[in-house]
């Protein structure tokens, strides 16, 4: 069975370490905050100028001056600090954030990432995505393994080369899909390696749904995300 969104988020949470400063994207990455292990201290950064994001507010306690980068109302914690957008991206670009978990349209086997623009469609903008993937120490992508069209056809999202405009070149360290986990040697240039399979998913199934070339190194076991 392919992993559910929750199982993918739970697998991504295994990349967290005690003391990490982390930026989470919208969608499945947001769910990762539900799986921070008890006792582990992780500070979430919001690129609109906040470190130490708290939970969503109780109804009636929303503060229009306190939002995350998805423009959702949030709350602060005893550890919270606020700062300008310039300081925020100084943290990001300067390599002070340990981990960025975000979604993607396409990832190439060399770590190239495309997630902001489809030519011919109204482009909303890259927001902070280009800064995050260029500056954050470790970049983890969480996405569906293939893009499903309305007519039921499927297009691979893990490619030899991205054909959508790039967000960053050679930036992705790890890709978690609903079918498995791939590591990418973005600096060394030795490409993509399948390192884990979702329960009941076979290497053959993944090969059929992946346009990228990849090695297989499963350490002789199938992993269980949740």
């Amino acid at each position: 069975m392919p992993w559910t969104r929750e199982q993918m988020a739970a697998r991504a949470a295994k990349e967290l370490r005690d003391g990490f400063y982390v930026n989470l994207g919208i969608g499945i990455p947001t769910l990762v905050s539900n799986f921070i292990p008890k006792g582990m201290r992780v500070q979430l950064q919001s690129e609109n100028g906040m470190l130490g994001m708290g939970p969503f507010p109780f109804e009636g306690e929303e503060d229009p001056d306190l939002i995350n980068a998805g423009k959702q109302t949030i709350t602060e914690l005893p550890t919270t600090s606020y700062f300008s957008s310039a300081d925020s991206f100084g943290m990001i670009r300067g390599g002070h954030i340990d981990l960025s978990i975000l979604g993607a349209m396409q990832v190439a086997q060399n770590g190239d990432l495309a997630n902001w623009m489809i030519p011919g469609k109204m482009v909303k903008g890259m927001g902070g995505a280009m800064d995050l993937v260029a500056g954050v120490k470790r970049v983890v992508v969480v996405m569906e393994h293939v893009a499903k069209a309305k007519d039921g056809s499927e297009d691979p999202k893990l490619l030899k080369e991205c054909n959508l405009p790039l967000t960053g070149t050679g930036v992705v360290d790890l890709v978690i899909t609903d079918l498995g986990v791939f590591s990418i040697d973005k600096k060394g240039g030795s490409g993509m390696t399948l390192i884990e399979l979702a329960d009941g998913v076979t290497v053959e199934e993944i090969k059929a749904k992946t346009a990228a070339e990849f090695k297989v190194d499963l350490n002789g076991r199938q992993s269980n995300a949740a």
Partner: protein
Amino acid sequence: MDKVYSDARSALAGLVKDGMTIMAGGFGLCGIPEALIEAIRDSGAKDLTFISNNAGVDGVGLGRLLETRQIRKMISSYVGENKLFAQQYLSGELELEFNPQGTLAERIRAGGAGIPAFYTKTGVGTLIAEGKEVREFNGEKYVMETGLFADISVVHAWKGDTEGNLVYRKTARNFNPMMATASRMTIAEVEHLVPAGEIDPDCMHTPGIFVKRMVHVPNPAKHIEQRTTRKRTESAVPAGAGEEV
């Protein structure tokens, strides 16, 4: 010289001319100088270039200036919340320059600090780097980006004193402090106006030297784009939403 004007319209009187470049603070609708934006609308000036992270939403913030077709060009990082924007952009009426959000913030910071250009690794190898100088430092590639400086900046602060010293509140700070530094004429709207000496000098975010004019806007209507709450019985996990991808 008194920096405090009686209202937004008089603070802007005679300043806004056709074709000017204006910076407007805020992230989404959080921390936008709404009263000053309305006054720019009332000025009737046309062909304006706005530097602002977003373009408001339909009917609020810069969305109001799209209604009157006063904006010719936007320099922004994300404009997704606005139907009128899409319409005018797709019909060719509105020019759009996308900047990565951190590059935009730094271009404004640099412009205000007298730095004409800088190198960043953001956007190397992407459309953003096309036509720009790329240079290698310590074996890594960086793209050159230029500083931004405007004719007018309009910013929103929580508190200000009569000297123009400003304090922002929570995430309503965002682009406001850099924009306050990066224009010939910075005008601040403040929710609380206090006499000089009332704000602890150790706790000021924007020193008054950057602020030329001020207007007191008590109890402004504030907008929430994505009202998100939890039930009192739900566990208190952090609300970890970030990039809009």
